[in-house]
């Protein structure tokens, strides 16, 4: 899984590598352009944007890079006047109902998306809309609330929940029909560290259990290595990079140029490596601990 792409290949991929049509491929976006009613033109070009079944992908980019535009095209909220958007082989702007039925979405501000009068009603909202019978709806809600550990909240009123609880409810509402794709816009925004970790665990669980592909945007770069495998980097309406997250994070200079920063551990160990220390760049704290203990052991051996 961690097979890294060659850097040269990443850089040269622009406009070059044709997409192989694949039955596992669930999203394909090719240089799209949209014009808003006030004549502002927004495009997302550069590399093709492709997502396969069960993948865990983050879209990184500074504010205003075009992340939301891209997501809105995938959801069929925007209609491209140029380029191609295919989700599950369909054009979302034309077949929005079929497409969104298979996508769960958690927006950045959960208050805007929790609609039901009670938590139960909110989770049941989507299956009810798609005409599931009462016992079926109950079964679906029961299943997802058990898996996310929020059954004790079912009778609660949404506006009395904490931020972390609201996020989980939104997640349950998005996942209740077990869609193939889950889109999360800044899922960690405004959450305390513990809630962030809980959400990460839930997302992993969802990905494992249902094989749901995760597609998220996030600025919480330090939390990402634990939950995503691959990253797309967008800047000023162009998809500039695509690759395994550890490879993308190593390009510190490039990241700085597009107003991004690598995770703090990556930055620290990259600097140590530049100083000539023989370390591997870690992505999580356990790995980092091992590296440091290794270094200490080696230097102690030398000293002795």
């Amino acid at each position, binding site marked *: 899984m961690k097979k890294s792409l060659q850097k040269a290949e990443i850089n040269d991929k622009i406009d070059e590598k044709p997409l192989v049509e694949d039955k596992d491929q669930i999203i394909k976006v090719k240089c799209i352009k949209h014009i808003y009613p006030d004549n502002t033109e927004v495009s997302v070009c550069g590399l093709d944007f492709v997502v396969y079944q069960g993948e865990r992908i983050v879209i990184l980019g500074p504010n205003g890079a075009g992340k939301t535009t891209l997501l*809105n095209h995938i*959801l069929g*909220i925007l209609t491209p006047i140029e380029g191609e958007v295919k989700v599950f082989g369909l054009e979302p702007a034309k077949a*929005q*109902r079929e497409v*969104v*039925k298979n*996508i769960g*979405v958690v*927006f950045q*501000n959960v*208050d*805007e*998306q*929790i*609609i*039901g*009068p*009670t938590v139960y*009603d909110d989770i*049941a*909202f*989507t299956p*009810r*809309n*798609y005409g599931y019978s009462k016992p079926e709806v109950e079964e679906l809600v029961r299943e997802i609330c058990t898996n996310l550990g929020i059954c004790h909240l079912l009778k609660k*009123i*949404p*506006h*009395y929940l904490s931020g972390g609880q609201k996020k989980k409810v939104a997640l349950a*509402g998005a996942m209740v029909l077990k869609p193939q794709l889950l889109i999360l816009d800044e899922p960690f925004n405004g959450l305390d560290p513990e809630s962030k970790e809980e959400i990460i665990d839930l997302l992993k669980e969802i990905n494992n259990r249902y094989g749901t592909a995760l597609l998220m945007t996030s600025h919480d770069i330090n939390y990402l290595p634990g939950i995503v495998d691959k990253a797309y980097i967008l800047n000023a309406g162009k998809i500039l990079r695509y690759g395994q997250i550890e490879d993308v994070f190593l390009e510190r200079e490039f990241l700085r140029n597009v107003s991004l920063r690598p995770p703090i551990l990556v930055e620290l160990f990259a600097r140590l490596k530049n100083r000539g220390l023989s370390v591997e760049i870690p992505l999580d704290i356990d790995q980092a601990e091992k590296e440091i203990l290794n270094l200490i052991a080696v230097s102690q051996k030398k000293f002795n």
Partner: protein
Amino acid sequence: MDLALIDLMANKGDSVLHQSSAISKFFFVICVLIGIILADSLLDFLPLVGILLVGCLFAQISIQKMIHYALYPAFFSLLFAFIRFSVSLSAGLVVIFKAVTAAMALLLFIFTTPYPELFALINRFLPQILVDGMFFTYRIFFILIAEMRNLLTSVRLKGGYRPLGLLFNIKNLAGAIGVLFIHAFDLSEKMHQVLTIRGYNGLKTDLQTKLGNSDYLTILAGLTVIILVVII
């Protein structure tokens, strides 16, 4: 107008009235309203006010709070009472009492009924669009009131509020309301997207129709009101 406070009391309360279903409480309110329509002397209000105050005790609502809310209808009915005072003092007072007791009955209902039940009940009488509209009003009210509170706080913190400066306040308030408007319309656009993605075609909730002991008590109280008013 403390919708937020009322909502909190309705949802966190656990009295006999909280436990009875929305249907029986609604029946009670209708009975009180019929009583009010029938009532035309001060004496008639004895059972009405009595039973409403007992209701407050049962619902664990402080009488003080109830009186505070009842001041609005009392104030608004004054205009009508003025005209009736020309007939007699008691005729004027009857007008005020009618307004106040009706408001008390509705407040008692709203203080003890969580809003999902309330909307499920209303759903039986009004078209779906209206009920959904009311529900969205309710949700959005809570989102926007939190924002308005923050906006007003920052207006105050920046010295934009003077107790005596009406025009000064209005100018700054207009700015805050303007910001609120813009955010509100963005919110509506966002919710439009959410509804599209989640496949909205009408909200559905389940209304509990099984009646329990507390319901019979509420219904009995309602009937008692009418009987007493008619007898008196």
